[in-house]
């Protein structure tokens, strides 16, 4: 516990330093302190997981009503490791990256405060502490969006984000207070032990799921995400995507799976349907997006949708009498969140580097970075492998466990349960495919091939700490992908904590993971050894046979004459997907032809423009906003500027309150 408290103290110091120190020291020391806080808190979480203890601390002061209470149980600690990794990487990156508006006093201090907020949410031990940490996280991230408030896009993003995050926080507050009132305690552990049921639990379930899902970017509450991520500064969007959205799913696991245990299974099926829609929607938009950060934002929606599928299916399976499969799913989601935190942080940070080196985030104008920014590109490749689900990278482990859990959930269930589980499985499969399209596009169009603009041609690799910050999550990705056993073993404890589920036979050790009776196993270390062995053999054989080989120029597909215009662009790469899913995406395509003067048969210029707007935003939110606006205009007549009228309103309300309350 001491280490955890020290971490919190260091994070507080980082805020103070960020607010007070002069420019150069500010960026360096505040971010170094934040990184140190991340290391300390992450270390405390790992220690708690390894020693199988649950450190906790409580003080009656600090917060009103119940005081502040910190508790590091297996679920919180599993999440905290991810969050700490993201915070550390983002803070280290900021040291070498922050300049201009994002190095100003408020920006640096707010970023440190945001880091503290995300670090505190998973260790909060009671409702008041949880809600306070949640609000700190939400408010500071909102303020961080406004750091560059002179840009209209940033203001509009902040407006959307503010409405969604505050509405979500209100729903969460309502739901958690209702649950606490029924359980007669505000301690999260106590509430989980008491178990909350009845009609109040349904209201609490709906409110908290809506609130947490909006933070996790679930459709149709996702609209803030593709706006906020591109507008925030790079380290902040990395923290938002890698840590904050994951905390939305953490909230669902903690409150809805852990506390509202008596909820009916069909509520979970509803969440599952929403999650499946969310994952597919995010993946589709990611596949068609050309702005790097927008692509990553939609890919966050997609990844969180997959996680939500896992949690919802786990809730349904547990209620439907298949706790083993449910526990496997929860372990899978926890691992997947860790993997997502690492690779998404890396990708966002790399995007920041690319944008600074080339001056653009538009994939259609990038390309050829593999030769000019070699180290960044190879690190990005690791992240992309993890996102796509290539074995030996972390993303694969989470996805594999989720599929194992869903498949196990098919056996011996009633038709309704089978249908729900199948829906999850199909959505997972389809989403994985579309994610692969998006990620291959990111790496292939953005980093391979030839440069498509002068900016991309002139790109230079940055040096120093920013590359270290990128390497940190890459190492974590590979470590988790190659030796997933220990992580699975500790995550299993979290699943056991969530309402007494037990994974019989889900064994994780250094060699790999084995899932009980179905005898299916994952042994990445063996795979790696096999791959290395095969490569060595191949190399030896190639050298042995090299004596008789004559070197000559191969047929190079006419490669020497290839120009940048002959290769795929991001738009053309995604065009088939966009065409197939045109009904969902509703793309706005515009082709303009200009003819030569002398002949109408010879075309001179052909411009093709294609843009994909968010159909949910225009179809669902615009009418609501228009309605609210019209109501506001009409209500303006009530306020005509007369002081007496306002005073009379006050008197009338006072009288009404007196009469109603008597």
């Amino acid at each position, binding site marked *: 516990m001491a280490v955890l408290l020290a971490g919190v103290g260091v994070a507080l110091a980082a805020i103070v330093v960020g607010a007070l120190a002069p420019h150069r020291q500010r960026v360096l020391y505040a971010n170094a302190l934040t990184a140190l806080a991340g290391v300390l808190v992450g270390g405390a979480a790992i220690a708690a997981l390894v020693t199988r203890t649950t450190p906790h601390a409580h003080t009656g002061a600090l917060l009103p009503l119940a005081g502040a209470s910190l508790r590091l149980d297996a679920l919180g600690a599993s999440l905290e490791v991810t969050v700490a990794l993201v915070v550390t990487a983002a803070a280290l990156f900021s040291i070498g990256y922050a300049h201009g508006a994002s190095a100003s006093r408020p920006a640096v201090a707010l970023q440190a405060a945001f880091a503290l907020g995300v670090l505190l949410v998973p260790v909060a031990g009671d409702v008041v502490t949880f809600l306070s940490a949640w609000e700190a996280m939400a408010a500071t991230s909102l303020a961080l969006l406004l750091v560059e408030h002179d840009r209209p896009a940033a203001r509009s993003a902040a407006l959307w984000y503010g409405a969604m995050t505050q509405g979500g926080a209100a729903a969460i507050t309502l739901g958690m207070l209702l649950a606490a009132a029924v359980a007669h305690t505000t301690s999260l552990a106590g509430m989980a032990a008491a178990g909350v049921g009845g009609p109040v639990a349904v209201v609490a379930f709906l409110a908290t799921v809506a609130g947490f899902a909006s933070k996790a970017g679930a459709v149709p509450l996702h609209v803030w995400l593709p706006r906020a991520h591109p507008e925030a500064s790079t380290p902040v969007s990395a923290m938002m995507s890698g840590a904050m959205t994951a905390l939305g799913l953490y909230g669902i696991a903690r409150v809805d799976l852990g506390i509202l245990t008596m909820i009916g299974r069909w509520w979970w099926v509803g969440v599952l349907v929403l999650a499946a829609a969310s994952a597919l929607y995010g993946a589709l938009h990611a596949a068609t997006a050309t702005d790097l950060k927008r692509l990553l934002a939609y890919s966050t929606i997609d990844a969180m949708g997959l996680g939500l599928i896992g949690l919802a299916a786990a809730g349904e399976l547990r209620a439907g009498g298949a706790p083993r499969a449910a526990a496997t799913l929860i372990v899978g989601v926890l691992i997947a969140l860790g993997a997502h935190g690492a690779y998404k942080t890396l990708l966002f940070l790399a995007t920041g580097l690319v944008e600074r080196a080339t001056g653009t985030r538009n994939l259609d104008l990038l390309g050829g970075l593999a030769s000019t920014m070699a180290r960044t590109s190879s690190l990005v490749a690791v992240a992309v492998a993890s996102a796509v689900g290539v074995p030996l990278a972390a993303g694969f482990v989470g996805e594999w466990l989720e599929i194992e859990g869903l498949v196990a959930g098919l056996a011996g269930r009633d038709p309704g349960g089978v249908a729900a589980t199948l829906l999850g499985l199909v959505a997972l499969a389809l989403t994985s495919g579309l994610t692969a399209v998006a990620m291959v596009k990111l790496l292939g169009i953005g980093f391979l091939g030839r440069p498509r603009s002068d900016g991309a041609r002139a790109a230079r690799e940055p040096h120093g700490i920013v590359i270290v910050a990128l390497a940190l999550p890459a190492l974590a990705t590979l470590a988790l992908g190659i030796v997933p056993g220990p992580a699975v073993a500790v995550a299993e404890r979290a699943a056991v904590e969530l309402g007494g589920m037990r994974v019989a036979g889900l064994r994780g050790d250094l060699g790999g993971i084995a899932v009980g009776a179905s005898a299916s196993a994952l042994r990445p270390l063996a795979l790696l050894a096999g791959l290395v062995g095969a490569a060595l053999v191949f190399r030896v054989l190639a050298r042995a046979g090299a004596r008789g080989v004559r070197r000559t120029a191969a047929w190079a597909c006419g490669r020497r004459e290839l120009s940048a215009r002959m290769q795929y662009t991001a738009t053309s790469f995604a065009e088939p997907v966009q065409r197939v899913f045109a009904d969902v995406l509703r793309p706005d395509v515009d082709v303009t032809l200009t003819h030569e003067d002398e002949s109408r048969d010879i075309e001179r210029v052909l411009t093709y423009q294609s843009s994909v707007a968010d159909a949910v935003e225009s179809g669902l939110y615009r009418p609501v906003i228009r309605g609210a606006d019209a109501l506001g205009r009409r209500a303006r007549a009530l*306020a*005509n500027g007369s002081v*007496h009228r306002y005073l009379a309103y006050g008197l009338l309300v006072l*009288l009404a309150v*007196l*009469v109603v309350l*008597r």
Partner: protein
Amino acid sequence: MTGLAGAVIDLAAVAVLVIGVAGLWRRDLRALVGLLRIQGIALALVAASTAATQHDVGLGVTAVLVVVVKAGVVPTLLGRVARSDPGARESAPFINVPSSLVLAAALVGLAVVVGAPLHALAPGRAAALAPLGLATVLTGYLLLVTRRRALSQVVGLLVIDNGVALMTFLLTAGVPLIVELGGSLDVLLVVVVLRALLGTMRARLGNVALDELRELHD
């Protein structure tokens, strides 16, 4: 002794309300300020009598404070404003005097009806009078809503404050001195600020009928 103090409390509490209603009746601004002064004295009497029955030194100090602020400093400050514009009258209130007196009667009735449960908060003779405080608050509010002159509105605000103070004296047998001190200082500050504001407004605009300031609202 207790009987005498009880009678004084009864009388003074009723006086606070009656003076509040009289504020609706008088249209001369200087007379209005005079009424406010008398109301302050009546309020102080309530506090002093309660202090005497309960042998509460803090409440006694509060009573002195009430006399100084509500019957002394504040009316004097407002009186200066009123004197600087001699003959100023509340020429045309939004609701004429007879109608506002009828309304005030209705509000007092309402206050007695809805204020009845207040007695349960602090059983005792004084607490039964608490609806008078509520009635004073409502009367002050009516003054605030229906009068055009800025000075009358300040008086309305102070009548509300006196009503709240009356209610606290009757219900809780006096709030802690520090709270009363804070409240009184707030009122004093408001009056000082408003007086400065009134002076500026008169210098810029020539008259102080708030009703005509409507165009500034955007």
